[in-house]
């Protein structure tokens, strides 16, 4: 498959870009932040996303969605990255839709997928527990209790956790932390007794939450996929999420780079445009090449995910690692080349730096994924 967007994909990008740049420019995000908005995103915009077919992008057509793939989800994520538009697209349209579609029972799919596609249900993936992303170290306990389970433990960095109607909870139903066996995903009503959700204000002013599970009683049919064998489903969902976040990082990088190159062509010092200085030209050119590599690696990963999620892991590791380091470089060069203005809150460039830092951590940073690649290549 060619590593370029086809005609339909280009049209999707144009329509996403048209809506997002018009209705959700960076100023939209800034206002939500300044207002300390309780939801953290615009429900009106999410409704429009549903009307445009974006909320149900990964939902099969027979469940009311568009039945598209990861390449298309990446297109939306990249546009979101360009304006930092807060949206439950990642948590709900990408992660929850993928988890339900891949692991859900016929009943779960029939009940919840159409609601996601219609924009009527927000769901969040609760995976991380410690400071770093270590899915195999999941310790939140799922103990057998009567006909169902009792969940006990803590989750952190749950994207859209405080607004979620439903939670996908990665839990340990058997085995010990560090083991792949014994993981189970549960599909849980966020209002179930014993669940305490604390919205955590993060530096990027996007949604995240810490969630405590205190003997939360759930039914046996809350299991998503197979009991104790949730590792494969979790890998698939996480890898799709990683591909999507990588695409957002490409959007962040491109936007920062575009703004920075423009600034190099406007700003004068020593009687010259600063873009005339070779010291900056070479750094800008280097960054350009890095972004091209990241873009190509992310596109490759998204295509591989659409071909076969199980064999896409190496490409996803490359994409997330590369997109992370590239965005980290892009935002640093962006701030540096904007000089003092880059340090001001009034200037948007710092928002991108903050968002890139969060996206680096989300579902494994560049070191995590370089290590993953080394493991996959057996060294």
């Amino acid at each position, binding site marked *: 498959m*060619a*590593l*370029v967007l086809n005609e339909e994909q280009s049209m999707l990008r144009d329509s996403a870009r048209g809506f997002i740049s018009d209705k959700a420019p960076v100023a939209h995000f800034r206002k939500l932040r300044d207002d300390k908005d309780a939801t953290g995103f615009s429900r009106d915009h999410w409704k429009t996303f549903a009307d445009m077919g974006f909320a149900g992008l990964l939902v099969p057509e027979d469940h009311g969605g568009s039945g598209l793939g990861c390449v298309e989800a990446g297109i939306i994520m990249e546009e979101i990255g360009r304006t930092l538009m807060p949206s439950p697209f990642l948590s709900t349209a990408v992660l929850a839709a993928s988890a339900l579609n891949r692991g859900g029972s016929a009943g779960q799919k029939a009940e919840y997928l159409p609601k996601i596609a219609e924009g009527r249900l927000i769901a969040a993936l609760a995976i991380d527990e410690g400071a770093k992303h270590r899915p195999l170290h999941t310790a939140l306990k799922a103990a057998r209790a009567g006909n169902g389970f009792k969940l006990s433990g803590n989750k952190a960095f749950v994207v859209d956790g405080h607004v979620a109607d439903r939670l996908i909870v990665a839990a340990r139903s058997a085995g010990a932390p560090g083991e792949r066996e014994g993981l189970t995903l549960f599909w849980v009503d966020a209002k179930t007794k014993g669940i305490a959700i604390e919205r955590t204000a993060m530096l990027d002013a996007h949604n995240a939450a810490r969630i405590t599970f205190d003997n939360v009683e759930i039914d046996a049919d809350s299991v998503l996929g197979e009991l104790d064998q949730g590792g494969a489903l979790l890998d698939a969902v996480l890898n799709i999420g990683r591909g999507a976040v990588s695409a957002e990082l490409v959007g962040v990088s491109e936007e920062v780079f575009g703004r920075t*190159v423009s600034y*190099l*062509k406007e700003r004068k010092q020593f009687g*010259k*445009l600063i*873009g*005339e200085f*070779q010291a900056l*030209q*070479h750094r*800008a*050119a*280097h960054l*350009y*090449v890095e972004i*091209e*590599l*990241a*873009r*190509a*690696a992310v*596109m*490759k990963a998204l295509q591989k995910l659409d071909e076969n999620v199980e064999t896409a892991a*190496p*490409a996803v*590791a*490359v*994409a997330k*690692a*590369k997109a992370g*380091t590239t965005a980290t470089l892009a935002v640093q060069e962006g701030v540096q080349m904007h000089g003092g203005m880059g340090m001001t809150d009034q200037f948007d460039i710092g928002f991108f730096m903050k968002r890139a830092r969060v996206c680096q951590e989300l579902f494994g940073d*560049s*070191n995590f*994924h*370089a*290590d993953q*690649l*080394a*493991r996959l*290549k*057996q*060294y």
Partner: protein
Amino acid sequence: MSDLETFRSETRAWLEANCPPEMRKPVAGDEDVFWGGRNTKFASEPQRVWFERMRDKGWTVPDWPTEYGGGGLDGAQHKVLREEMARISARPPLSSFGIWMLGPALLKYGTEAQKKEYLPQIAAGKIRWCQGYSEPNAGSDLASIQTRAESDGDHYVINGQKIWTSYANYADWIFCLVRTDPQAKKHDGISFILFDMASTGVTTKPILLISGKSPFCETFFDNVRVPKSHVVGTVNRGWDVAKYLLQHERAMISDLGGRGASRPLGQVAADSVGQDQQGRLDDPMLRGQIATFDVDEAAMACAAERAVDLAKAGQGHPAFSSAMKYYGTELNKRRYEILMSAGGVDALEWESARSQDGARARAWLRTKANSIEGGTSEVMLGIVAKRILDLPGA
């Protein structure tokens, strides 16, 4: 099955049947590369068989038109062939500056007579070409070349000196930049001309490099007479041809690491530093370096693939090969720094049979030229800044 899928299955079957097992191993040294030429010898029987079978299919130059000895494949088919060759680690049947550099320039700028004369010979590996570009005082500032070509009836008389002429001592013919109008501005008085290295007045002198090898020569021209019909493109517009050819040269150099063709670094390193009980390299810092390298190398392969796809879709940028040249060569230098670090003391041996005459050390030193030859990394970044980013005054 689509036409392309049919092509893939037929190609796979043909390669399985026709690529000798010996030609499916990574290239280990110079003798594993077949360069063609008038005085050529095959290093082995499988090398000959593989070359001749591919030549007969036109697959030494798969995407050239069949009338010039090519395979006539379209972009999608060519990509399939590359993928299928990579799948079985098939070596290139023929390596040649004629294929990588001169051929594309002739296809764009050559007369029909020149195409008919030279392209089939390149495809069949009959003539080995070298490149007469750099001069002692024209390196990064290539357009300041001083080698003169003076008109004398139907001929030019060429005098001057070239340097860094790769394999000039083995080459049959040269494609050469000469100054045909010394009065014009430096970019406007250059012509691109072809001539036989056996011509009277051509001498070559190998240059000993830090690797202890001499892949480059000094090349001297003393009243070399060349028919005017050997000019490619318009007289005094040779800079256009030169730049176009450089795009192809840079794309070629960007691939020097032979992505995927050599043994994975992690395995090579495991040979010398060992592995722990979990199968991880017993040198965590080196392991981290290799993993970071592997990420960048894989991303580079994606970018190179995308560049071809973009060009095919008419969305490519002509200067993008400079971006790839920059990154690919820096990456190859990193690869060899890691290889030297992984090899430790063993990689320092220079003459032993154990070290194959210091093969790794010499290859490491050779890579330092990658970011100089064909335009330095700094020149490449300048081109990206100016032509792609449109930065001022670059």
